[in-house]
């Protein structure tokens, strides 16, 4: 009985993954297709879109820019999210609901409004548009995401653990790293992944807040307009998927190696 239930969940998970990866699978398919037009039937095999990609500095720069913005936004917003989530779940505060609500405001503002009004703010203040202005915009968007994910992790957190640690003579800093952090770690990882993904993928804010350094979505938005540019963008999408899968598998191998070493040293 039990094993059958596990199976049905696993089957669902596989179907769900197919749903998630179906659109992604389309990308490599047409990146090897010898036609500007993305339609069936496929015409023939070619590598020309990949060589076009190698020549396209705009695309490569945009990718690097997006990585820079995404990684910094993920780290900063998760740190800010930890502060906020911890304070909300740990302490009973008067009128905190209102302030937490305020942090959530960027979620409610239509992105185009946030983009334009932030741009107006920057131009009034004489701030030059750059990757930093894009990051600030993304930060506004990502902090609420991070906070919500972490709150759902920290709610019901057992205070006595931290108190025990403090009583045992650890200071607050080490208590955080050695007690609190390991417990909220799944939330932290989820938050990092989520905020990176959001920033890496965000287009509207990035359009309004970018100067001459475009991020990947801004670049893709402009490339999507012309069919003969499209297949090399698809090629890039395919490369990103394959590359990130490889990197993650590689990292997992390292991690496993690390765990095994640890186990051995324990013995």
């Amino acid at each position, binding site marked *: 009985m039990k094993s059958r239930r596990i199976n049905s969940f696993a089957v669902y998970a596989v179907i769900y993954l197919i749903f998630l990866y179906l659109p992604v699978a389309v990308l490599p398919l047409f990146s090897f297709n010898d036609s500007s037009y993305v339609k069936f039937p496929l015409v023939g095999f070619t590598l020309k879109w990949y060589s076009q990609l190698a020549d396209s500095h705009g695309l490569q720069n945009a990718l690097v820019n997006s990585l820079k913005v995404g990684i910094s936004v993920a780290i900063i917003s998760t740190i800010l999210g930890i502060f906020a989530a911890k304070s909300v779940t740990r302490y009973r505060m008067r009128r905190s609901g209102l302030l937490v609500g305020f942090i959530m405001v*960027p979620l409610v503002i239509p992105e185009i409004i946030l983009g334009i009004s932030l741009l107006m703010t920057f131009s009034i203040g004489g701030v030059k548009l750059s990757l930093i202005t894009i990051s600030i915009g993304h930060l506004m968007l990502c902090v609420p995401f991070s906070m919500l994910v972490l709150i759902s992790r920290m709610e019901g957190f057992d205070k006595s653990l931290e108190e025990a640690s403090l009583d045992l003579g650890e200071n607050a800093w080490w208590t955080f790293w050695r007690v609190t952090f390991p417990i909220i770690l799944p939330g932290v990882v989820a938050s990092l992944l989520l905020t990176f993904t959001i920033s890496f993928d965000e287009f509207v804010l990035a359009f309004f807040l970018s100067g001459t350094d475009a991020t990947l979505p801004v670049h893709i938005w402009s490339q999507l307009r012309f069919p003969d540019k*499209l297949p090399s963008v698809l090629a890039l999408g395919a490369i990103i998927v394959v590359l990130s899968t490889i990197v993650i598998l590689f990292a997992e191998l390292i991690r496993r190696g690390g765990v095994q070493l640890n186990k051995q040293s324990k013995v």
Partner: protein
Amino acid sequence: MISADRTLVDKIRLQFRRSESIRGYTLLSPTLLIVLLGLLFPLIILFTLSFWKQEYVDLIQTFTLKNYGDFFEKKIYYLILYRSIRISAFVMFVTVLLAYPLAYFIAFHVQKNKMIWIILVTIPFWTSYLLRVFSWKVILGYNGVINSSLLSLGLISEPLEFLLYNPFAVVITLAHAWAAVAILPIYVSLEKIDRSLIEASRDLGESAVATFIRVTLPLSLPGVIAACLLVFIPTVGDYVTPALVGGTRGIMIGNIIQSMFGKALNWPLGAALSIISMLTVTAAVCLLLGATQLFKKKVS
């Protein structure tokens, strides 16, 4: 002197330790400050704009309620807003419903390598939203994956046209686009549940379903709520997806607001519309939270 000082410092320190409020706010302040810095000006600009009006390229800086009046007078705005809320609510429902079992699977059935699963779920979202929307067009399109395979199997003789360029396509595309945003918070809150509670319930003779409804689901509610909010709120204002796959009837409030800041060149009306839409979304969110409170009470 010295001792008096010391007691004062001690008092403050004591007060600080005792007062949860103060400690909480201290911890909250960095985040709050940064969001405040980033949002204060934009919000002021937005509110001020919404009470002005625009003539050609000039903003007329006299107070007027005309923009808000327009919303209630002209049918189009509240009709579209209502339509957007309905579509977003539907997207939220579908996305969370589909995501929950997967999050459950990762949290309870995957023993090793949970992180691999989590990352596996997020990888598709690193390929750029615009490309994924484009892919959906290829999948659902006239000569797309589905139509081509159905045609070659001989199940249909003409490509199905109802797959793309309608609200249905918008819902599918959005449910896919926001999948990770729904899965992660639900997984995080499921992961936190103390397994012994579930075992205890089973030991007491509750069925698997009853255990799920009485123990697992209520305990994972924070994550479900977070997922609902994170999916529902941003999709209301989306204007790219409806423009790309929604066809002639797919427009949402985001498209109208966007056009106010572009083609229609009426920034004040755009600002007023977004404030109204923000308030409506907030009200809808409150309703959702109220409903879950009710659910919690009922279950317990």
